[in-house]
Structure formats: C-alpha cells, structure tokens
C-alpha cells in the first residue's frame, strides 16, 4: 500500500527499532541512502546497511537478516516484482520500499499489511483498480448449495430446476472467463513498459524537510540523485525540468537564511547555486577541447567521428575566437578573460551550428577556494567509482568507495572518481566512433543490434550495466545523426557485450528509440523474458532493471532470432 504521511507511517514507526537498509547499486540509491543515514544518525536509529547488486543478492541478504530484524527498507529495488512471493517472509516482517522502477507490481500496491510503498501516489502510476484484478472466489459455493437444497424435490421439477441451475452456472463461467481475459489484458498493458518515477533521493529529502532536519548536504545529495536520473536518461525532459523547479525552491530557501552584507558566510561553508550551465561533461575539471570532444551532445551534433566533423569543430572554436592553445589546456588555467563570458559565447555560437540546447538547468556547489562541482560532475565521478573494473575490488568494495566519495570530507576519492570518469568517457567516445565507422550497428528489422567483440579496447568497462547503457544511448544518438535511412532513426537499440570470459556470458541491454519527446518507456524487459522462455536460452534476469540481462554466449543467436520474431 502507498504511505500517505511519510513521517507518521514510516519514520515514527522505525524510530525505536533496528532497521536493515538494502540498497541497489545506482547513484540515486546511494544518495537516498546517505540522506537516510544522516537522518538516522540524528535520531540514533540503529541500522545495518547492506549493498545488494541483484535479486539473488537481495534474497540472500534477506535470509541472513530476517531472524534478527523486523523492518527492512529497500532503496531502488523491489517495487516491480511480487516481493512477498519472492522472499517468503514471516508475517511480522515489514518492508518499506522506495523505488523509482515502474510499474509497481499490483500485489505490492494492494497488500495492506507487509508492504509499504514510499512513493507519491500522483506520480504517474495508473495502477489498475482493485476489482479489475482481484476477485473473491465464493461464487462456486452458491451453486452447489442450491443443488443440494433442490435434491429433495420430485424428479420433473428437479430437472427443470437443474436446467436453470446449469444455465446459471454456464453463464457464471462465461463471465468468469471474460473477466479473466480482460484481467490478463489489463495486466499486460500495465506491465508492458518499464519506466522510472521520482528520484528516491528526492523522496527522502522531502522526509527530511517534513521533519525540519534537512541540511545543505542532504539537499545536495537530493540534487545529485535527480541529476543521475537525467544523465542516465531515465526520466523525461519535462519531469526533469519540473523536479529542478522543486529543488530550486529548496535551494533558495537554504540560501536565503544565511548571507547578508555584514555576516557573510566563511568561504569554507557549502554553497549551492542554481546554474544554467553548459552541457559539456566535466568541462571544469578537464580542458574545454577534450570536454567538447567527448560529450555526447556536441560529439553527435558535430559528428566528430568524421574528418568533416573535426573540421567543423575547429571552425566552431575559431568562430568563438578561442585560441587552440587556450582551449587545450586545463580549464582552470585558461585566461580569465576567456572564462568570463564563456557560457554566453558558446551558446551564441552553438545556435549557429544547430545545437539549440547547449545549456541545461542544473546546480553547482562550492566549498573552499578550490572545490567547485556541478551535479553532473558528481554523478559521472561516482558512477565511474561504482563500476570501476579493477580486478581485486568486489562490487561491494566499489559500492563503499562510491558512497564515501559523496561525503565532502573525501575530496580525494571524488577526484580519483573524476579521473576514472574521464577515462570512461574517452573510451565511450572511441567505441562509438569505431562502431559507426565500421558499421557495426545492424538493423534486424524491428530493432537495431550491435555486438562488441571480445578484443575491443576497453571492453571490460562495458561489462557493467550502467556503463553499457550509457554507451548504448550515445551510440543510438550518434547513429541517428549519421544515418540517412529515415526508418532506422525510429528504431530501438539492443546491445550485447562480453561480461565474463571464463563463464562465457554476455550482458544484453535494450533501450527505447531516440526522439526529442520520448517518454522513455522501455518494453525490452518483457520481450527478453518471453524470448528467453521460447528458446529456453540460459539467461539470468538478475538485474533490478528488467531490460538488462545476462546470457550465455552460445545462446546469443537463437535468442536474437526469437526476439526478432517476437517484435516484428
């Protein structure tokens, strides 16, 4: 069931209890986790934090802790499956689920006792009504009751009554079959597309705000959670802009309190400001040239994998009057005269080259003289740390490192994350360039398909789901810009990359087609399930996003064929 009052029905319930936090491995979940941890520290609520990387991990963690804990908080996992069936908990276990995955499973919505959803009800849910899906099973009893009553009557009368009873029974069964068919249809429509709702970090920030325990740190984490949804293309533009407006209200509320002419805050205090900043990834921590070269938006608009595109880039820079020497050095070392009006100058020139949205609404933070970060910088850095492909680090090690990087006291970790993010972006750019130039993207009819061969440079980076999804989106955008085939521009993309060479598995990701007004609804989850079933391929649907699966390399071709037949 949905929780109406998050303070009364969630926070006060766990106030004197011990809680287990099960957190999924994405940046929004990490930010939500940090906010909740800060609240728990304030009120001394004892908790245990366990990172979970998939459904199996979730099950194991639940089994380990179910003896000792009654209350479980699941962050960014668990809403889109029937949780009670999967975990088989005892009757006194209570689950609080704050998850952005939609559609929320109907059993989770209509269970009154054990599942509490920390999700806003107006959040674009369109849950089917109760009567359409659930039905009480006591009509059968009435029929047999009638028959035994009439059994004492004489046979002639009985036959007539029997006929009436039989007719009524047939009528009831037909109605039941119709109801069941309609139910299947409703459920199919409801569960067909997967998409995302409001950020979990924003939900917990709202809880903090209601408790008046919100701080600037928590606000910054909420902003990072929201920006993560935008960077990884999980929410629509409209929703992003609306949520930014909500956050802007909070930011101005926090900024209004402290500063005036006489008592200005020390430079070391944290300041969050609204920025209408450039869409160039990490540009303040890199050189301007590299940032333009490796950002998805600019790279696809200029078509930087072609010689022509690179010439255009040089023209663009010349048009703005930026000398190459300046542009290639670290951003912080550029001349002040250039940095002053940079955003306006770039916006003006980009309009000439057809890039209308070079600027995007976002937030930045700065504390101390050296530390300035944009929200998207933080997202890229933390994502790179979370999915770093070092041999010795397990996934939980990476989780802990990424969690640490979000604290302001661990700037070194953050800088190492930024360095990793730069490498990742360069790798993505090069892979995209090589895929387009060698025509690796094939149209299979209802969708586009691309397979990264084992020997591809940096292919280890792309064995992780978030990195592969990012590559997928860049690739699709680049393809749409480079192809002439009008029909192909509207197709979705399925991408496969080797995951584990020893076990012989690949990771397969599907994303919806690229368009300006896309609603980001992804139907590949159900499609993958059905294709795997029909060909009995050995697949592992372990990831919380149903559109990402693991597959045995040998079954790849038959899986693909099944998918083609399914979707055509």
């Amino acid at each position, binding site marked *: 069931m949905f929780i109406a009052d998050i303070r009364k029905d969630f926070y006060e319930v766990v106030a004197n209890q*011990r809680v287990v936090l099960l957190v999924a491995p994405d940046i929004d979940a990490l930010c939500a986790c940090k906010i909740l*941890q800060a609240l*728990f*520290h304030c009120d*001394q*609520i*004892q*908790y*245990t*934090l*366990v*990172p979970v990387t998939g459904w199996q991990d979730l099950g194991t963690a639940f089994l*380990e*802790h179910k*003896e*000792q804990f009654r209350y479980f908080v699941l962050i960014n996992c668990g809403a889109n499956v029937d949780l009670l069936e999967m975990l088989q908990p005892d009757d006194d276990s209570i689950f609080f689920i704050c998850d952005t995955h939609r559609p929320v499973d109907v059993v989770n919505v209509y269970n009154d006792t054990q599942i509490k959803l920390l999700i806003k009800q107006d959040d674009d849910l369109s849950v089917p009504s109760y009567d359409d899906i659930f039905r009480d099973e006591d009509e059968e009893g009435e029929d047999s009751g009638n028959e035994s009553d009439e059994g004492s009557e004489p046979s002639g009368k009985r036959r007539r009554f029997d006929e009436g009873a039989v007719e009524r029974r047939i009528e009831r069964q037909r109605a039941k079959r119709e109801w069941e068919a309609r139910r299947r249809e409703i459920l199919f429509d409801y569960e067909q597309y997967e998409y995302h709702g409001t950020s979990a970090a924003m939900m917990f920030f709202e809880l903090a705000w209601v408790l008046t325990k919100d701080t600037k740190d928590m606000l910054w984490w909420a902003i990072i959670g929201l920006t993560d949804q935008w960077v990884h293309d999980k929410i629509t533009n409209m929703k992003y802009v609306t949520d930014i407006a909500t956050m802007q209200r909070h930011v101005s509320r926090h900024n209004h309190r402290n500063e005036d002419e006489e008592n200005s805050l020390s430079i070391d205090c944290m300041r969050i400001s609204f920025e209408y900043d450039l869409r160039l990834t990490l540009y303040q921590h890199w050189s301007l040239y590299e940032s333009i070269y490796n950002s998805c938006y600019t790279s696809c608009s200029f078509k930087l994998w072609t010689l022509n595109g690179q010439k255009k880039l040089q023209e663009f820079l010349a048009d703005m009057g930026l000398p190459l020497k300046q542009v290639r050095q670290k951003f912080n070392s550029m001349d002040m005269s250039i940095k002053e009006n940079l955003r306006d100058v770039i916006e003006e020139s980009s309009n000439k080259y057809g890039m209308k949205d070079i600027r995007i609404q976002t937030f930045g933070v700065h504390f101390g003289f050296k530390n300035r970060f944009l929200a998207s910088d933080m997202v890229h850095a933390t994502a790179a740390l979370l999915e770093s492909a070092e041999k010795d680090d*397990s996934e*939980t*090690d990476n*989780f*802990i490192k990424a969690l640490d990087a979000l*604290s302001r*006291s661990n700037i070194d970790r953050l800088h190492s994350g930024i360095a990793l993010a730069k490498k990742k972006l360069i790798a993505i750019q090069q892979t995209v360039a090589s895929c387009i130039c060698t025509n690796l993207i094939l149209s299979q009819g209802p969708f586009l398909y691309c397979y990264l061969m084992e020997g591809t440079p940096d292919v280890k980076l792309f064995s992780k789901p978030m990195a592969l999804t990012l590559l997928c989106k860049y690739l699709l955008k680049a393809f749409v810009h480079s192809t002439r085939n009008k029909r192909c521009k509207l197709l979705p993309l399925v991408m496969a990359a080797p995951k584990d060479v020893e076990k012989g598995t690949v990771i397969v990701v599907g994303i919806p087609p690229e368009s300006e007004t896309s609603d980001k609804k992804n139907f590949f989850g159900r499609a993958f399930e059905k294709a795997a079933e029909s060909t009995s391929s050995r697949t592992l649907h372990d990831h919380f996003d149903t559109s990402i699966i693991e597959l045995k390399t040998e079954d790849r071709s038959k899986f693909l064929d099944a998918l083609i037949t399914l979707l055509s």
Partner: protein
Amino acid sequence: MFCEKAIELIRELHRMSDGQLPAFNEDGLRQVLQEMEALYEQNQSDVNEAKSEGRAKLIPSIKLRHCCLLRNQRCVTAYLYDRLLRIRALRWEYGSVLPANVRFHMCAEELQWFSQYKKSLASFMRSLGGNEGLDITQDMKPPKSLYIEVRCLKDHGEFEIDDGTVILLKKNSQHFLPRWKCEQLIRQGVLEHVVS
C-alpha cells in the same frame, strides 16, 4: 665502576619511553643487590676498623661506598616504582584481563600488586553512582555521540549487543551501533569507524 648495573636498569626503562613494559630484569636486579651487599660488607669492616684503630684515612672510602649504596638504592626503587606506574596504566588501557605477553613480563610480586590494584579500583567504581556503580575506565574523553557508524572490514560472523540482538558482520556492510560495544572490535581491526 660502581653503580653501573643500576644505571643499566634505568636505561632499559628509558629506552621504552612510550609506556611499554619490558621484561622484569631479575638478573640485573640481583646483580645490583649483590653489589650493594658487597659494598655494605666492605663498609662494615672498614667502619669497625676505623672505630677500633682510629684510622681516619678510611673515612673517605667509607663515605664513597655509602654514597654508592644510596645511589643504588635510589636507582632500584626508581626502577620498581616506574614499572608499577606502567602496570597501573595497563589496567586503564587493556581492562582487567591483561594479554598473555604482557603478563609474561611481570614478576610474581608485580602480578600480585596488579590484582590488588584491580580490586581497589573495582570497589571504588562500585561505590560511585548510587547502588549501581560506574565504570570510569570507559570514555576517557567525553564522547561526541552515543552511537557510531562502523564499517566491517572482514567477515566476522555474528555479534551480540547488549539487548540481545545479533548483528551479522559481513564484509563491507555498515552498521550504526553503540560506541562501547564497537571499541573492542575496532581495536582488533574487524570494524572501522566511518567519519563522514
């Protein structure tokens, strides 16, 4: 030269100036005591001789030996007293059960002194705070908070806290637990205090 052995004892303690307890130097102590005994006997015979025969020339050597005796006495008492102070500090650092390697370095009398010190401290603590007593050996500095966040560095299995709940300490899980329960595990290296 006289008093060399006594200085050796002092130097030994001085070398370990950070409060560690070196092994009880029974040999050295015995040698110092033997030297003192030898000096004393020589002095005795000289004093008798001086008294009976009135030879005033022996008096400076008697004085010298007497000074050496006093110096040895000072050094030995300083050695023993400093060791006792270190042993007392051990109670506050390690608690009432000492690790075996430390106990190995103490002689029997020191062990006895330690157990009596423990007893007095315990009865003092019991007498504080009404009927319940107060453990003053915890929290030498005022703690910032009752609960701290800890991260588990290796798999440690199950861990019971005061009200009976059992926490499963798995690698890389984080927990928010009462400070006093965690301190021992932090010292062992199983948990790490997370400062955010």
